[in-house]
Structure formats: C-alpha cells, structure tokens
C-alpha cells in the first residue's frame, strides 16, 4: 500500500495533494522533473497547499529542482520548508 498522493500538472503549475513520504517520493520526483522540463524555461510552480505530510524524501525531490521551481505552501508545511533550508534556495509563497 502506498501513501495517497494526487499530482496534477496544469499550465506551469504542479499541484500535489495528500502525503509525500519515502514510499512515493520517487513518483513525486519524476513528476516534478517532467513538469520542470515541460515549463520551457520559466519556473515551475509547485503547489503544496493540499499536502498534509512531507518528509525528507519529498524534500529531497524539491531540493533537486530548487533552481527551477517556486513553491506554494499552507501554514502546515511552512515551518518544514523553512527549517529544511528550501525557503532559502527557492521562492516559497505561503498563503
């Protein structure tokens, strides 16, 4: 059983919903890479506002694409992105 995660890519925005942990981080990373490639130069917006859980495996996927993405997050993940240092590498929008 893998963790529930929905990934939607639409006009430069990758929206994730559910939980990202080591069991599905690979999927997340692949989707991220595909979406980044597809954005054609401009930064991909990764919307994590519906993500209820993100662990270091998921963070690793984000770090890998840090130069090519911007992140939208809710209050739940904000401290995590701050503490992990991702907020220092890429733009994180908290709403």
């Amino acid at each position, binding site marked *: *059983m*893998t*963790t*529930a995660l929905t990934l939607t890519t639409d006009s430069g925005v990758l929206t994730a919903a559910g*939980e990202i*942990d*080591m*069991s599905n981080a690979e999927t997340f990373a692949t989707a991220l890479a595909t979406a980044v490639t597809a954005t054609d130069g401009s930064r991909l917006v990764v919307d994590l506002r519906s993500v209820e*859980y*993100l*662990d*270091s*495996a998921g*963070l*690793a996927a984000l*770090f890998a694409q840090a130069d090519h993405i911007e992140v939208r997050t809710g*209050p*739940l*993940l904000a*401290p*995590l992105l701050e*503490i*992990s240092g991702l907020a220092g590498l890429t733009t994180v929008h908290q709403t």
Partner: protein
Amino acid sequence: MSGSERRPSAHVFSADSEVGNDLAAVDWSATPLGPPEDWPQSLQTAVSILLSSRFSMWMAWGPELTFFCNAAYRRNTLGRKYPWALGRPAGEVWAEIWGDIGPRIDTVLRTGEATWDEGLLLFVERSGYPEESYHTFSYSPLRDDDGAVVGMLCVVSEETDRVIGERRMATLRDLGSDPSVVRTEEQMLAFAGAQLGRNLRDLPFTLTYLFDDDSTARLAGATGIDAGHPAAAVGTWPVERLAQGETVRMRLAAEPFAVLPSGDWPAPPTEALVLPLLRQGGAPYGFLVAALNRYRPFDSAYRGFLELAAGHVAAGIAGVRTYRAQQRRAEELAELDRAKTTFFSNISHEFRTPLTLIMGPVEDLLADADDGTREQLELIQRNGLRLGKLVNALLDFSRIEAGRMQAVYEPVELAAATAELASVFRSAIERAGLALDVDCPPLAEPVHVDRGMWEKVILNLLSNALKFTFDGRVRVAVHADGGEAVVTVADTGVGVAAEEMPRLFERFHRIENARSRSNEGSGIGLALVQELVGLHGGTITADSTVGRGTTFTIRLPFGKSDPPAAAPQRAVVDAQPFLEEALRWLPADSGPAPEPAAPGGTAVLVADDNADMREYLTRLLRSAGHRVTAVADGQEALESARADVPDLVISDVMMPRLDGLRLVAALRADPRTAGTPVLLLSARAGEEASIEGLEAGADDYLVKPFSAAELLARVRANVELSRLRNHHARWRTALIDSLQEAFFVCDEDGAIIEINSAFTDILGYGPEGLPYGPVPPWWPDPETDAEAHDAVSDALAMLLGQSHGSYTIPVVHRDGHRLWAAAAFNQVRDPDTGRLVVVGTFRDVTAEHYAIQRDSALAALGLCLSEAENLDGALTAVLGELREIWQAAYVLAAVFTEPGRPVVTATDGAPTWETLAPERRDEILALHDRPALTPAGSGITLDHPYGTMVLWIEPGPKRPFTEPDETLLALLAGHLSQGLHRIHQIDQQRETALALQRAILGPDRLPSGFAVRYEPATRPLKVGGDWYDTIELADGRIGIVVGDCVGHGLRAATVMGQLRSACRALLLRDSSPARALMSLDQFAGHLPGATCATVFCGVLDAATGHLTYSSAGHPPAIVGHPDGTTHLLDQGRSRPLAVHPGDDRPEATYTVPPRATLLLYTDGLVERRRRPLSIGIDQASAAVRHGLGTPIEDLASEIMDRLTPDSGYDDDVALLLYRHPGPLELEFPAESGRLSGVRAALRNWLERCGIDANTTQNILVAAGEACANAIEHGHRDAPGGRIRLRAAATAGDLRLIVTDTGRWKTPDPATSPYRGRGLKLMRAFMHAVTVTSGTTGTIVDMQARIS
C-alpha cells in the same frame, strides 16, 4: 696585584689558575727572561703546555735555567719549596740534588737528546729534612723560536711509595718464608736475623731480646750492629714497660748511642721503635729494637711494617716452642709405653702359673662330677680359658715389642687354611642369627705363614665381626691380586665412625659407646692382628661405614723365601677359647629357669654384659630369696626399671650401649626410680673409681672379685635402707595409682615426668617412656591437624604460665584415635629440689565432647532449616553451617535428578561439577549408589525431595575428618534429609497459596495507560480486603473498580476475592456502574463479611475519556488536569454495599481531559487516626498535581511513597492510576508502505492527547523520519524486520520511542543527502533526540514539550 693590568702574562698563565696566579706574581723583569709580554712564542707555548698538563712536570728556560712547574709537580714533589721556587734558577731550587741532576741537564742542553731515569734515589729537602725519595723522569730539550736549545722540560713521576712499599713487603715475605717447619729457637732467630739484616734501609739496625723464665731479658739476635755494642746492653731499654706489652718510641741520643752504625745511610739513625714480641694469652716472649730510617717520616705505614716484622718473629718463637713441647711429650709417652709393655709381660708370666694350676685340677674334677657341680666347674673352666687367652695375647705383644717373637714360616695353602678357621666359627655366627659366607677358592701358589699366628689373625677378626654385627652376614674371602694374596673379613655390623678409624689398630684403644654384643675385651685384638700381619711382611687395612659394616683387608706376599726354620712345629693355637668366649655373648638357649617369685621377696634388677656373671648373680640372689630380673646392658636395665621399678639395681660399670654410671644418672633423673638403690660392680679397683660411682648417685660400690656373702650383705642393707627411706614415696605412688583420673607431674619446661596408671589407661603411654615432652607424642600432628595442635600448644602455655587452671584439649591415643581430655592443674614447689612443677589430673571427656558437639551442630542445623524461606535457601544455609562445623575447605551437595548429571550446590570457593577434580567426581558418583545415611569418609548419601543427594565435606587443611566426625555427619544428614522434605512441603503449600492470592488480587495484564499498587496490611499475605480491577469491555470501554471490604487479613481477602469476581461478572453483563453495584448489593447480602464494603465502580471510554461512575460509600476519585488543577469525582455517591439492598444507586459522568491523571484508591491511602479524611484526600490531590509530568508507573510508586505514614501503612491500600489517553503502541513491518497508516494512527492519538495542528505536524515529521530511517537503514540489509513505535504523554511532555531490530547507519551525506536532512528535521522539531544503537537494534528516543 691586579690581573687586569697584566693582561699578557695572565694570558700566558691562564691554563692553570692556581699555579698560574703565582707565576704571574713573580717579578719576571728581575729574571733573564724579562716581562712575560716580551717572551718568545716558544716560551709562552711551553709554559701553557706545562700548566695545562696533569702529569707532574717542571721546566727550566734561559741562561739561568729559570724554574717553572705545574700543579701536579707542586703537589707530588716540590713540597715546601713552592711558591719560592717559581722564577728562580733551577740550580738554586734543586741545590741539594744538583750533583745528580745537573750533569743530566747539561747533557740535554748540549746534545739536544732526552734522558731517562727510572726509580732514581734523590734526597730532596722539601719537608724540612733530607728525604729519601725515588723518581722516574725524563729531561727533554726546549727550543726557542729559532730552534736553538734554550731550556729543558722534565716529566717526572715520583715513586717513593712504591719503592719503599715493595722493599718492606719483601722483608716481610722473607720473614714468613722459613722453609723448615720446626727448628730450634736459635736457628729460628738466626733465620729471622738474616732477613732483617737484608733491609738496612728500613732497619738500620735491630736487636732482639728474649725474656727468660725469671723475666730477665737476654740479647738473642742483632742485625746491622755488633752484639757487643754498648747500645745492645739490656739495661739500655725500658724492659719493664716492654714486658707489659707496650711499644716504645725512643730518641737515640748521647751514651750509649753516641756512635751508632748507620745501616745503608750516610748518617746514623736518631730514633728507634721498641716492640714487644707478643704471645697469645701471655706475657711477651721478648722485644725487638728497630732503629728508624732518618730519611723517612715515621708514619703509620712504617709503624705497621715494624709491627708485622715483630709479629713474624714472635710467631716463629711460638712455633718453635710448641714443637719443642710436643717432642718432649712424645718422648715421655714412648717411655711410658715401654714401661707398660714390660709390666704386662712380667705380670702375664706370673698369671700363667696359677692359671695352669687352676685349669688342670678343674679338668680332672669335670671328668667325674655330678650335674650340679659340673655346671659350676664349667663356669670355672670357661673363664679360666678366657683368662688364658688374654694372658697369651699380652705375652705375644711383649714378644713382638721385644723382637723375640719366634715365627715358623712354612708354605701354607692359605685359602684352605683360612676357610677351615672360618668354619670353626660357623656355628657361633649362625646361632647369632647371622650368615657366614666363605669364598676361598684355592690360590695358585702357597703363602709362607706361621700357622699359629695366622689362626690368631683370622680368629680375632671373626670374633670381632661377630661382636659388632647384629644382623646380616659375615664374609671371609681369599683371592690373589698381583703378587699378593688378599684375605678379607667383612661384616654388616655397626661400623666404625670416621674419626675413630685412625686409632682402630691402636693398642688398648677401645671405641666407646659402640653397640656390641659384649663390652668385654681388652682392646688388644686388632693391635695384635696388625703386628702379626706385619711380621709376615703383609699389611692390614680397614674400611668402614657407620651402620653399614666393616671390611678388613689383609695383603700377604706370595712366596716368601725365608727357609723353613728347623725349629719344631709350634703347637697350633686352640680355637676353643675364642669360640667359648663368643658363644657367651649370644643369648643363652636356656637361661636360669625363672623361679616362682617369692611374694615377699625383694625385686632385684641385675645388669651385666657377661652372661656368666649374670647367671652367677642370679643364682646367688635367688638362693637368698630375692626376685631377680637379669638384663645384658644398661639400656635394657633402664627400660626394665622404668616399666617395673625394682627394689634394688645391681649393675656392672662397663657395659655396651649404656654403661653403669650413665644408668645410675638416668635412674636418678627419673622421679620414679630416683629413690631406687643402685649397687655398682666393677673390676676397676681404687678409690677414684668408687668415688666416681658414688658421685654418679650409686648407693654402694663393690669391686670384683667380691665374696658372695659380702654381696648379699650389701644387698640386704641397701634394700632395708631404701625401704625405710621410700616408705612414704611408696604410699604416695599407691595413692596416685589408685586415682580414677589420670595424674601427671610436669616440670618447668613442660615435660611430663610422672604419670599414674589411669594416665596410661587413657592415653596408652606408660611410665617406660618417661619423660614425655615438652612436645609429647599424644599431641595432634601440627601438619595435618593444625587447629587441634594449636589448642594443645595454648593449653601448655597456660599450664606453664598460670598458677592453676583447667582446659579441655584434643589429644591422640597411642593407637591413633582422637580423645578429648579435660584437665585441671596446679603449680607446686617440689619440696626436694625446690623447683616449680605442675601437678595435674585429667579425665577422658571424649564422649561428652562429642555429645556437646553433636547437640550444638544439631541446634545450628535446626536453626538453618527453620529460618530458610525455601528449599534452595535451606540447603545453601546448611552447607555453610556444615562448613563452619568442620572448618572444611568447602561443602558440596550434588542432587541427582537424573543419573550422572547432578545439580550441584556448594559453599563459596567450591569448584563446580565441571571443575571438580575427576577423582572427587568419581567418589561422589560412587557415593550416589551407596545406601542412604551410611557415611564413607567425609561423604554421605541422603534423600532430597528431588532425588538422591550426595553431601561432600572437603576436609580443610587444619582439621582432619575422623571417625566421630563420620558419626556426626550421619546424624546431621538424617536431620537434614527430614528438614529438606519438610521445607519442600511448606514450599509447595506456600506456592499454592501464592497462586491463589494472585488469582484473586487483580488482573495479570493491565490495559495501556494504567498503573496499580497494592499494599496489604498483613504480612506475609499478599492479599487483603482491598482490591482494584480493570475489565476490558466491548467497544474499547474499560471497567475500573476499586473496593474495600471490612477488615483485613485472610478473612477479608476471601470476601474480597468473591466481591471482585462478582463485580467483574456484573460489569461484563451490564456496563452501567450503578446497576452493577445494585446487583452487587444483592450478592453481598448473601456473603458473610461483605456488608459495608465500599466500591468505586466506573466505565471509561478509552478513546474519548468519557467516564460513567457510581460510588458505594467509597472515597472520591481524584482527577489532575494538565493545567495543574484537581477535581474530585464526588458525584454518583450512595451507601456502602448491602446496606438497603434493592434501593437505586445514582450514577454520574465525567470526561477525563487529555493528559489528565485519574487516581482511584482505598481509604488506607488517605485515612489516618485523629485526622479528617479530607486532609488525606488533599494530600493525595497534591501528590497527583505534583506528578502530572511523571510517567504513570513512576507516579504510582511516588504516590505510595509520599503518603506512607512514618510507621508504614497499617491498613490495606489499593491504588489505581490512569492517564488519558493511554500510550500508543504500534508494531509494524519495516516497509515504506506502512508509514502512511502509522502516521494516521499517530495523528489520531495526538488528537486525543489534545495536541494542536502545528505541533502534531512537527511530531509527525520527526516520527516519520525516525521510521523512515529504521526502514531505510535499519532493515535495508535484513528485510522482514519489525519496527515498534511507542508514544506516551504526560501533562506537559510527549515521549516518542521508535525501536527497530537493525543497525542504525550514520547517514553519509555523500550517498544520501536527504537522510542527513531527516535527522536534522527530528532535532529541529523535537526537544531532545537520543539515538542508541547496539547489536540488537536501534532506539530513537524523542521528547517534545506540548504545553
């Protein structure tokens, strides 16, 4: 002088600061050399070399040969001339020897060649007088800067000490080298004079004087001076002081010393030392005048030399005088010997006539004598023969001495002749119990011997062998060896001590104290043999080892060419006297028949080594009505007298082993025989001999020959006298012997000197062995039984140290068995001797001792068994006790639950079954098959509840295991077996009781989040009237019950057990607390003792914390909120159980907030005498408040502790704690797919804990990372492992523990960068993170604050 002003010179002289400074101080400008700053380089260099050398050197430079020297020369040679000599012309410095050295220096300056002189004598005036000195030196040229010789350097070593030391040593050596050992005094002095006269340097002249007997001195020698010189007159010297041993130093001035010889020197001596010639332990022999060398100081070396020289002269005189004295003595002895021989020769001749006149008639009488007379006549004949033999031997001697021995040599077949002689002795030797070996094969040629003499030689040797041999054999052998016939007579007898060997063949020399068959003998046998062998041109030697035997070896030349003398054949010596004599040494076949003892007769002990004399005395004394015991020597006599004290002892003086005088001394030393009269018999006449006997303590002395009447009269008188004297002593002895208790007298050294018959009965040691001690044979062995030995030593110390006392000690009977003796003693003063003795009595308390030992051992064993809590404890305690009883090394019990593989219990220090010595293991296995309770050594078999048990006592080094110990062991083992079975039964009963208690007390397993305590008021019961219970109901609800029956102890416990079970059943059927209690009312109404029990009954929804409860007269539960407030659940209350059964009961509800703590309890926790209950409840509330942050299990203990009264709880206490929600405990496989579910469960639990969303998210991330790590690293290499997660909350903290069974890997950032991020995240979101990794797994322990 200021060094800084004269820099150049200071530089030249800087190599040596001391001499350099003095050189610098010289006014050089006044010398031909001028100021040093103008000196040529060559001079500066030479001076610098001179000063820096440590060899003794001086140099001269320039036209006046200006003198320089270094520090070594100053010290060794220059003496007082320093520093005067510096800078002066050398000729002035050494003016006194310039005659010797001037020409040498001239040669050097002229030729430029060096000189060399060794040990040159020079008279130097460096000490204020011309001094004899010796120098080895070399002069070498010194050149100036142009190469011209302008000076000389002298390197010198002074050898005065060596030269003079060697000279003196030579004189002393010569004095001590007198090659002849003994001479006359004149010769000796002449030799010494010659040696002294050779050293005229140290001894310009000497005079030797000796004191005559009247202490006047006379001149005995002179060297270097004429004996007629006026100075040699005796009156010149202080004779009296010298006679006292003083040494005198004298000035030799004026008459008579005006004109003295000068020895080797130009001028005569001015002083002399006069030394006594010291004699060891007496006045000096004389004195020695030694004139002193005026050219040397008189120092300690010189004095020592003279003393040694005088010592040599004195020693020479001592040697000569000793020799002279010895020589004189030897001459006197030789003269004495000659006189003795003449005397013996004369007297022997005189003996022969009367002897012939005795022997002839006796022989006639024997021809027709009756039996009674015959016996007596034979006695006469035997002794006549013996006397004749002695006389003949003495005559032979005097003949040999006088050179008148008439030998008739004829060729004899020596082997056959010798074998024949040996066979004559065969019967006597065999009767003595010895074997005779004769090994005499025929020789190739005859030997010329005188038959008569040869027979004497062999018979003497054989008789000698028989006399000194007590077991073994005598061997006679003949063989040829080169040109000689060798005859050996060897025995296996007592042997001769090495120090006696040189005197073996000496005439009249008898070896004292050698054990022999008879003390008879004149000491001439071997001497005669040697003389006789010598007459044959042969030799005899002896070889002997004490205790091994003696071998005599005779060597005779073959073919002695002396023509057979024409004289008629000499009568062959009769072997009869030798044989007769030898036979009398042997035990008689039938001695005088023991006559029936006349009851009233006097007991007489006769000791004589001569069998005839013994028989004669026995017959004589018996005829006078005495009881006679006859023995052959002093030792036997002493043993006999000690064993049975006679009324009188008659003893010969000369006897083997112990002679008469020593026998008397031994008898007198023994208190029992001290009073027995002794009559000595001796052949040695004269006042002196009898005084010696009486001094030894003999009562009377009789000289052989004596008349029968005289002997009997003396016997009678002595016995009467001693009867009177000993009357009270006999009475005392009779009294002591009649004592039931053992009696002893002990001297001041602790030796036992008197005992009675009870003593012998108890210990087995009789009076014959007296004295005993100070370490008597009944003392326990210090090696094998140190403990007992120490006890006895202590007792002896007490005996000697205290005036009276008593003690009980272990002793050993003569037959080896152990006894215990209780002794009492008193110190008293012996009225006869005035010495302090100890008188004591003791009795055998062995039986009592063992009875006490048995009783105390049994008591100790009983105590061990009664105190033991269980079977193993009992066995362990008993083994310790047994070890104590026997002071054992260890005690071991092997219980054979299955054959061959026992379960071993042992005291400390014992080996295990595996490390036990194999032989010990075998012993124990063998014991296993023995019947129970029959000891074998220190092991025994008994019946243990689990099987056969072998009990093994390993004896300690200080305490042997004896037979009484075996008995005691059997007894104890029997008790032990019974005791173990009894304990086993009790064990079983107790286990049953405990199982029952556990069954009624409460649930084995609590739902999570609960903690309970139970403290019964009554020990050792582990149950009482109070109880707690948790019941897991449907829908995750939990019934919680705390109740309290009236009273405590077993009765209350039985009621409680039933109520608890009933309540449990009721709640399971209907989860309403009120209804359950109402039903319980009904039940309790029918249960005696259940009325008025109080119960708090609730049903808790563990998910929500919702609680429904009802209280039957029970104290309110307490809820502690995380914010620190407390709340009492005091609703839903009504009467205790079974009071108005059937009435409704109220019910209340309460929701326990997250992280709140719920406490249910019985009144034992809070109720105290003379105190409102509310105070106790407040205290309990405070304890809950205090412990809101404490984990629940710890809090339970904390509350019990905080509320414990000073004297402990006096009522039952039951306590039940719950913290909401209970901890989360998850266990899942290490797979990443599980993480989501784990998170969901954790999220849910955190919600129940009332944690806010952000904190929840943080905890989820931390927990998630810990789990991910466990999956990723802990189990990557070992799939299938499991992970456990436990989360528990207190009021303010949350604790999360993730445990896996794998190895934690420290993240390597290079290979997995994001893992390192995981740990970082855990630390960021939690307050404390601890990772403990071990071989069995990894534990991540995290804590977070949540308030």
